[in-house]
């Protein structure tokens, strides 16, 4: 039996949801850095978002389970620290899905560009930290709703 094509493995990985923000996939999040074969072992290189993010362990388990379910027998998950993950690696699809879900996507300017609900631009920051390491809490002064902002790092 031949080994699956790398492009096919990328397709499989793009169906695995982020455990804490399930509207986006691990590929959308930009944390899968490389997929390749070393002999008959599939090597998937993953970079952590925040060094202490508790989702990291779950993400590795999810990748392991999903690929084994596709028939991968020999799998190695490599952690790559450098270059450090940046929100610039979020895919366009990922950014769009985040906003549809109610999380403002990261902006290089350091704050959300508009409210993910009403698209109002009159915003205020409540806290630099939110319900997960990757998010901050903001509020829209137009619709008065608080919302999560995916921090730019």
């Amino acid at each position, binding site marked *: 039996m031949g080994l699956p094509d790398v492009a096919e493995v990328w397709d499989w990985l793009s169906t695995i949801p982020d455990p804490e923000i399930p509207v986006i996939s691990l590929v959308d999040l930009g944390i899968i850095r490389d997929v390749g074969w070393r002999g008959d072992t599939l090597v998937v290189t993953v970079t*952590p978002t*925040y*060094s*202490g*993010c*508790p989702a990291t362990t779950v993400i590795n388990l999810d990748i392991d389970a999903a690929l084994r379910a596709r028939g991968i027998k020999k799998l190695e998950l490599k952690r790559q*620290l*450098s*270059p*450090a993950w940046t929100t610039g690696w979020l895919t366009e699809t990922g950014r769009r899905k985040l906003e549809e879900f109610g999380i403002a996507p990261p902006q290089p300017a350091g704050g959300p560009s508009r409210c993910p609900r009403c698209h109002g631009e009159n915003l205020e920051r*409540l*806290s*630099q*930290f*939110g*319900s997960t*390491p990757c998010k901050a*809490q903001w509020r829209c002064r137009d619709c008065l709703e608080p919302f999560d902002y995916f*921090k730019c*790092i």
Partner: protein
Amino acid sequence: MATPDNAALFQFLLRMGDNTLILGHRVSEWCGLAPVLEEDIALANTALDLIGQTQLWLGYAADVQGEGKTADDLAFLRDVWDFRNVLLVELPNGDFGQTIMRQFLFDAWASIMLARLQKSSDQTVREIAEKASKEVSYHVERSAGTVVGLGDGTEESHSRMQAALDYLFPYVGELFLSDEVDVAMIQAEIAPDPASLRAEYDALVAKIMAEATLTVPADAYVHKGGRSGALHTEHLGHLLAQMQWLQRAYPGCRW
């Protein structure tokens, strides 16, 4: 066993990892207790980042040590005399203001140190510093902002922040001391001379304290003994008794 060459590197990594481990644990003690929800979440996030950085520093320390240990072994199976954190981070939290002041005094140092370590001759040190820097830039922005908010706040918050600064400042000097471990790190171009960070640190602290209307103490007395392991405060043992409780009661327990 660590060889003579990497024994100093092992000590250096313990100092980095023990600083973040002990401060991370201290900050986590606020979880569920902070004055407002946003601050509670912010402190828990900060603690989480610090523990994450600990896994990287102590994980590398364990590799360098070469005895087949893990970051968890180093965190949970050592006692007071083996820890190499500065005394500043093991001090009790005190009130919220004191916790925030300690955080700023540490974050300011960490932000400068990690920037320098990104030029280390050691690739893993460089990579950990690159990763941790991004997180610490958020920490220092928030702790500095909160120090200013509370220092230049009410009469009550101002006096508490000044008291916190007066109490904590004599513990700051230890961050800039050096010994033979540092000499070895400087020679190998793995880490900078701790004293070379002082001018930049003092400038940052002076700027923030001026905005916070707080007075930096002139007395340069330095409490020391943490980073060498020679003399920790009585507080570290109590902290470890809680942090290591599970491994002490149920050795080897895992899940």
